[in-house]
């Protein structure tokens, strides 16, 4: 019953956004098309540009490096897509989550072995997800402020217990093998990203939970009135994000074979850039996990091109910040155009 009502809600919402489009002028329609599908073209053009004009891009070493760097951010981003689609802006605390998971993974596995380390990291991830989810879902608090505070609480706890020190993994063993291993030219970390994308995409599009996350993003009130416990849906979205961040922490720790509380600085922002550039709307409801994967490729290739062209870290930050604002602006204007 609930699901049928919601299907109608979504159908109505989609119809409302599609119908006026047909009446648009050619330029309006072109803009809408670019806003919706531009990322496919832009990614293709960017890769083409990089292959032709950027020295050292199209080498096996560099491509492997791009994969290695993209994988942890991408895993965070595909998880965080759930929070963004549910209309709760973003989860800033992924920075703390990735670092916590990486430090726990290396520090605990050195003493008690890998399974126990994974279990401990999972407990931490679920705690993060619950704290964020309860505050946002049941207390209806602002997600940006809640996750800002949990970032500081989490990083503070991590620095306090780790004493800010760097943890080194063993020189050989399964962690190292996984971190450096490859499937053909593709590192295992990128394979994990691909598997996560497929799993989370199924979760978002083929299950009741994913359906409720999307419908909450489209219309919060209708979702609640149809008898859904919306608080639980939000908690679920934050836990999915936290578990993805945990896996990203494993991948990052295995690759660098070290863990320190500052290792994931800027992950919140890069993941958000990937999600938004991929075409998932910060207004909620619209988007997909595969689009996020595309956004991850775009952002990673762009960063790599900037690094290869010896553009400083500062300019990279400026470029990514501008990219976020530009992508959201396009989305916002497209919404206005389609409402007209």
């Amino acid at each position, binding site marked *: 019953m609930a699901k049928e009502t919601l299907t109608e809600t979504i159908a109505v919402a989609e119809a409302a956004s599609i119908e006026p489009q047909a009446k648009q002028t050619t330029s309006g329609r072109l803009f809408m098309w670019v806003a919706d599908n531009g990322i496919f073209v832009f990614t293709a053009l960017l890769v083409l540009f990089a292959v032709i004009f950027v020295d050292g891009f199209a080498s096996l070493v560099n491509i492997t490096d791009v994969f290695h760097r993209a994988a942890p951010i991408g895993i965070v981003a595909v998880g965080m897509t759930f929070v963004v689609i549910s209309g709760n*802006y*973003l989860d800033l605390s992924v920075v703390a989550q990735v670092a916590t998971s990486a430090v726990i993974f290396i520090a605990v596995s050195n003493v008690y072995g890998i399974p126990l380390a994974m279990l401990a990291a999972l407990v931490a991830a679920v705690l993060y997800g619950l*704290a964020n989810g309860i*505050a946002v879902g*049941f*207390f*209806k*608090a*602002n997600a*940006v*402020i*809640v996750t*800002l*505070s*949990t*970032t*500081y*609480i989490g*990083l*503070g*706890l*991590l*620095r*306090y217990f780790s004493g*800010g020190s760097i943890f080194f993994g063993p020189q050989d063993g399964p962690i190292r093998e996984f971190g450096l291993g490859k499937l053909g030219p593709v590192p295992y970390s990128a394979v994990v990203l691909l598997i996560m994308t497929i799993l989370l995409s199924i979760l978002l599009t083929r299950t009741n939970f994913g359906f409720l996350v999307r419908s909450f993003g489209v219309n919060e009130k209708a979702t609640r009135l149809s008898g859904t416990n919306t*608080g639980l849906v939000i908690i679920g979205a934050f836990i999915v994000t936290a578990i993805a961040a945990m896996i990203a922490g494993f991948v990052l720790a295995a690759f660098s074979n070290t863990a320190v509380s500052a290792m994931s600085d*800027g992950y919140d*922002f890069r993941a*958000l850039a990937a999600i*938004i550039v991929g075409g998932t709307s*910060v*207004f909620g409801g619209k988007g997909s996990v595969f689009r996020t994967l595309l956004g991850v490729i775009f952002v990673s290739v762009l960063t790599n091109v900037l690094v290869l062209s010896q553009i*400083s*870290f*500062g*300019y*990279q*930050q*400026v*470029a*990514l*910040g*501008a990219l*976020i*604002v530009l992508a*959201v*602006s396009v989305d*916002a*204007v497209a*919404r*206005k155009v389609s409402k007209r």
Partner: protein
Amino acid sequence: MTETMQLGKAGPQGFFGRLRTVVARRTEGRGVALLAVILVTVAFVEPLVLTAYPVSLGRIALIGIVALGLTAVILMGELDLSVASTLALSGVIMASIPDLRLGVLAALATGLVVGAINAFFVAVIGINSFIATLGMLFALRGLAFVISDEAPVSLANKDAGIAFGLPLIGPLTPRVLIFILVFIAIQVFVSRVKAGREFFAVGGNRQAAYDAGIPVKRRILTGFLISGFVSSLAGVINTLERTTADPTAGSTVLLASFAAAIIGGNYLKGGRGSIVGTLIGATSLGILQVALTLSGVQVPVQEIFIGAILLIAVTTDPASIRAVVGGIRQATRGRAKTETA
């Protein structure tokens, strides 16, 4: 006639009745409670904080000045996350210009430009202010790195910086005096000036404010200009006091200033709040920080404290409490229904 008179006096009678209405109308309750708890605890555990009040005042001014500007934006239901980077960027710009006066002017202009850009994205393009200012937060930090060449820039005129750190009137340093001036200016603006009072209307119900003829977009611009200007002022003060400008400055200020504004009872969806509340919030956080530092508590633990206070503050505003109570009531009622059915 007497009946209508009595109808008009529907409000509660007597001193305590009136007191209750006044208290119910105010939004600073949680801030006052926190301040009281902190003051009492500090008086017993670390009385040094109260005797060394110039230190506490300096800390309060540091947290509070950015929070005051932020409050102007929060009153309209918007948020300005870019304050931290504005602070860093204006400091770096100021330090990289050899002439001090020109540097200060350029820094303050930076704040106004940032505010105008934020307002453009929020009011004209229609992006949610959380996301627009988050993008600006990273872009401006990048710009600060570019201008400073990724290293702290030291101020050319070191004497001015040293003079700036000395007490000016009694024990009050220029930083504290500027803080007090900014407080008075913004307080007068939002409570006595028409444009400032309209901030509450814009935050309370934007459509109604628009229908009532309030130039909503211009008010949003004013709000972001205030927060941009005030955070660049904080950047100038910081740079003068430390005689260097650090491109990474302001990351702790972000957390503390949001915490101050939200503890002070400023409702994030806008329309309710006060500048006095922000002052109370900043005061409690400043005293807490100084007390923790004096008791030898490590910085990470201080971050945990402030993060926890922010989390509690944002989950205990009246709307959140209502949401939880409503949720519980709905859940119990729903169960009762299914039992009878």
